[in-house]
């Protein structure tokens, strides 16, 4: 199998000169039945498929076969059911997060998924990659928000898991199976998600964070134990702040929420913890846009109590890399490190070094760095892959090892 050079998305168009005629240019199914036909044909001919939503983040730089034919699901678009009183919404996989945001905002609701990158990202991809941002620690990971899914497995069979109601334990859980599977078990065609009411009042505070690890650990602990109900608590470094015209030390951005009285009391509490000032809510949009074009990103995670140590270790390991940015969801114990494209040759050794401290998960890496991370090879994962994509045609090279 020919492999792409890891430079990513531009390589991925048709199935290449060797592919059967029907697979030489991208496929654009209009509905689930089209997707099923396409996958069935591809399975019969052994043509690998690269599923594509908006295409912002296709292979994350992984070493994937360049011979794959693009299966573009962006036309499976639109909200098919939204009853505000139920706080649930059903939409085609190609529906963008922005569209969902717009439809739900009118009713004071939202789908609280705020992954890095543009809001033109699709719902299907967001669930397939289990993408989320600072809101996840309080409002739920994609696995917690997905209620039902329709997908087409690797043999072209249309499968539905879950349902449209907020509580459901009927049958084995095909929803959790597919969320975060990176499209290797099925092409998501439609999803039902849980919405939440937007907070009545909100206020984002930037609380200066100390440089010294022990003191930082104490502050993070105090924040986690404080009488606060934030919907996001994100530690950001001075480089990120400087890039946003906000000079100063590292800081914790706390997104306080509740009713007005509650937010006012929480604000006073944050102020009592150190030097704090209010930021406009757009600070969160800037954080979501912190990855410059072509940047490499890894998540380093451990128990929340270890965040200060990780924060320090990562700072030390990246001291020489100009423009590296760190931010951390302190409640989830996840530090996200963004390295500019220019530093690509140091990423692989860096990943190896970080992996000795904690769990490292690649978001977007140069190919050599992917090879530094362990592949998913356990027995159950292999079994699941074989059961749902026996011909290994769905997104080969992602997540699970290639045949």
């Amino acid at each position, binding site marked *: 199998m020919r492999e792409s050079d890891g430079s990513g998305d531009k390589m991925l168009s048709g199935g290449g000169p060797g592919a059967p005629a029907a697979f030489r240019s991208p496929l654009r199914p209009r509905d689930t039945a089209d997707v099923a036909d396409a996958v069935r044909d591809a399975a019969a001919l052994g043509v690998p498929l690269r599923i594509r939503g908006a295409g912002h983040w296709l292979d994350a730089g992984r070493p994937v076969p360049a011979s794959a034919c693009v299966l573009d699901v962006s036309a499976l678009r639109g909200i098919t059911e939204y*009853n505000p*009183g139920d706080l649930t919404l059903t939409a085609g996989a190609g529906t963008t997060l922005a569209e969902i945001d717009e439809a739900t905002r009118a009713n004071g609701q939202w789908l609280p998924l705020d992954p890095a990158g543009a809001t033109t990202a699709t719902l299907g991809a967001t669930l397939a990659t289990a993408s989320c941002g600072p809101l996840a620690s309080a409002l739920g990971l994609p696995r917690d928000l997905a209620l039902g899914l329709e997908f087409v497995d690797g043999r072209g069979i249309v*499968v539905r898991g879950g349902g449209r109601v907020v*509580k459901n*334990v009927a049958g084995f859980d095909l929803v*959790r199976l597919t969320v975060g599977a990176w499209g290797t078990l099925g092409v998501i065609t439609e999803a039902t998600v849980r919405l939440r*009411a937007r907070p009545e009042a909100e206020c984002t505070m930037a609380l200066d964070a100390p440089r010294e690890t022990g003191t930082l650990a104490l502050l993070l602990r105090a924040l986690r134990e404080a009488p606060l109900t934030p919907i996001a608590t994100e530690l950001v470094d001075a480089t990120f702040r400087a890039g946003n015209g906000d000079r100063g030390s590292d800081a914790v951005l706390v997104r306080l929420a509740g009713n007005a009285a509650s937010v006012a009391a929480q604000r006073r509490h944050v102020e009592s913890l150190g030097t704090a000032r209010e930021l406009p809510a757009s600070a969160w949009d800037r954080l979501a846009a912190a990855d410059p074009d072509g940047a490499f990103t890894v998540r380093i995670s451990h128990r929340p*109590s270890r965040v200060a140590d990780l924060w320090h270790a990562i700072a030390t390991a990246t001291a020489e890399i100009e423009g590296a940015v760190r931010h951390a969801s302190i409640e989830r114990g996840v530090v996200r490190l963004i390295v500019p494209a220019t530093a690509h040759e140091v990423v692989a050794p860096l990943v190896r070094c970080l992996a000795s401290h904690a769990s490292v998960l690649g978001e977007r890496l140069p190919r050599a760095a992917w090879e530094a991370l362990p592949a998913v090879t356990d027995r*159950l994962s292999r079994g699941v892959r074989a*059961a749902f994509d026996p011909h290994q045609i769905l997104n080969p090279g992602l997540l699970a090892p290639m045949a």
Partner: protein
Amino acid sequence: MSHDALGAALAAIVGERQVLVRPSELLVYATDGLPGYRKQPGIAVFPRTRDELVQVVRLLAREGVPFVPRGAGTGLSGGALADGSVLLGLNRLTRVLSVDAENRLAVVEPGVVNVHLTRAVAPYGLHYAPDPSSQAACTIGGNVAENAGGPHCLKYGVTLNHVVALTVILPDGDIVTLGSADGERDGYDLVGCFVGSEGCFGVALDATVRLTRNPQAVRTLLADFTSMDAAARATSAIIAAGIVPAALEMMDQATIRAVEASIYAAGYPTDAAAVLLMELDGLEAGIDVDVEKLRTICLDGGARAVRIARDEGERTRLWQGRKKAFGAMGRISSHLVVQDAVIPRTRLPEVLRLIAQIGAAERLSVCNVFHAGDGNLHPNIPYNANDPDESARVHRAMRAIMRACVDAGGSVTGEHGIGLDKIDYMPRIFSPESLDAMCRLRAVFDPARRANPGKVVPVRSCREWTQAPATR
């Protein structure tokens, strides 16, 4: 291996007294929390340690013997019933293995009783949030297997949302670790697959669960309505208004009267057609603003009165009535079917009306006590299972109720599971292809289908099962 030889081999691992082989001794294990089914295990074995449990599962694997895990046996779908096979009792593995208070995590053995975990972590100001009404008896292992819910799951989420990692012994004896408490990993969400797998994917040896901080402030309210309809509409209005109470439970008149006639009398108004038991929790600051909002919605929606618990004693009493409602109902007849279904929350008024009509048509009294905020219904019917005519009417009514819930866009179970009881409904809500996909998922964990055989997905739905047995 013969029955006697298997019994002896098991006794060699766990000791004679931990193995039951005589039908008379096994009688108590022929039922779980659901009346109407009797399936007697051939042998019951109760390992006392993890090591014994592992040895038992490996012996069963070597001998190719099917088995059924069982926690406390409080399940309400017949999930823990073993038909002639080996019943694997987990209720002696009751240790809380570790508590990491700072990171709000606990590692527990499967037989730890739900409320015991909350008690064990109370000194840290923490609790285990999923609180099934059976929490004084049911086990964490059983909760994981059923993906159990409870009143406070409205705000805090169900079991799935609180399990971080699991150690599982697969039916073939392999031990695997699913998920991780020490950072996120790439890969399939196998924890998510195992939670709710109803004992069909293997046996949980331990579970790492998330703990929740005790709220600073709690307010418990009881709103009293003169019609079910008004209570249902108020529920929909509260959800639509964007208020997320920690709990929002409804009880109808039949339930209220059963509770008030029992030792759990909570002071519910016996002339009310329905009450809503609501709880708000969070920070002290601002909580009374939300209390006022909730009160106003209820009063505007026709509530006669809204009572706010004045102290911890009153709060406990209001909750005790709710949590013991099934028990109280159980006293008014010889048997009680506890039903479980979910509907979209905006459909509550009409579906509750339909359920009342169905009950009336079959001359049965339906008692509703349920998680209204989630749209998770429990229409329960007290009856006499020994009266064939009444039993037939109960079954007809249950089928009609399930149909009404499915037609409203709902599900046939929100927390009690499919088990044996609901297996025939599965083809009503899932296509043959989706059922087959579930069989494929199960086969990854248990290709020989020895763990809790015959549950959850009808065997005829599994294509490989009928077409190509034992090819792997």
